């Protein structure tokens, strides 16, 4: 196997692993956050405005970790910096 094939194989496998592992944690976190927010709204429907707003901001914060992993895997797939180095 020449070095291009090794780079391609490693990039593809790692892109899949990155998005797979990187989305597990945020998924658990978002599930917990939404469950807590729903029970909080059920207990105190009056403050549902504040809870919803904070929930959205918090979800965006949690989700950004998954987005980072997505960006890294997209870079590995479509804009791989090592690819040009070995094909030239």
């Amino acid at each position, binding site marked *: 196997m020449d070095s291009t094939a090794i780079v391609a194989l490693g990039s593809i496998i790692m892109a899949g692993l990155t998005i797979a592992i990187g989305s597990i944690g945020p998924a658990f976190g978002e599930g917990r956050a939404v469950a807590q927010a729903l029970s909080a709204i059920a207990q105190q429907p009056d403050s549902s*405005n*504040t809870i919803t*707003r904070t929930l*959205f*901001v918090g979800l*965006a914060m949690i*989700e*950004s970790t998954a*987005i*980072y992993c*997505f*960006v890294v895997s*997209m*870079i590995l797939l*479509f*804009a791989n910096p090592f690819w040009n180095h070995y094909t030239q």
Partner: protein
Amino acid sequence: MDSVQITTDEWIFWKSQAWPAVKLNATIVFSWLVMAILAIGSWLVTRKLATGTEIPRFQNVLEVLVTGMRDQIRDVSRQDPGKYLPFVGTLFLFIGMSNLLSVVPGYRPPTGSLTTTAALATCVFVAVPLYGIASQGLGGYLKHYIQPTPLMLPFNIIGELSRTLALAVRLYGNMMSGTVIAAILIGFVPLFVPILMQLLGLLTGMIQAYIFAVLAMVYIASATKVLRETEEEQQTEDDNEAHVTQTTT
């Protein structure tokens, strides 16, 4: 897979012959388009303002938008929204408009490029100290970098930088993922599924615009609010002490 471009920077509209570095890519063209739509639209609407019981339809739209943004800013910052509305409202309108237009065929949202989002995040990065210094002076603003102890100084600075990076990459990743997923789906289910993804993209576009504006407001509020909070705490403590002394006597 030529249809999958992860950035709009490589889609070039015009290139100068004499200066190869000077070129007009899709990011610049579409962000100027969004700016033109916002500016010309609001100029057209605010040309003939009415104050009676019957107001023009589009004036109503703008009033709803501005009132909603003022309410949200007041809720988040617990301060008078007038000072922050021009900056935060512009961020929200620009990002929201550029994300909403992505239903138009041939249009690619400029927020799907890291250059635009990095520029917007840099605006927030610069605006936070400006608002902070304007509200509590240079010394008062710099003091909150060493707030718990001076040991926390490097972590506060790193936090300031990393949240700017997070702000940029969050918006870029969300918008880029929408276009990339749509492009990949068109490759193997071209019939109906991309429409659903477009609908989802509209929702996430609006939510991301909202979140960007709210986070900018939260950062600005955290830089401006320290003084007021300590004053209020002092006030309530004084009140409590007075109350306690009254009850004990």
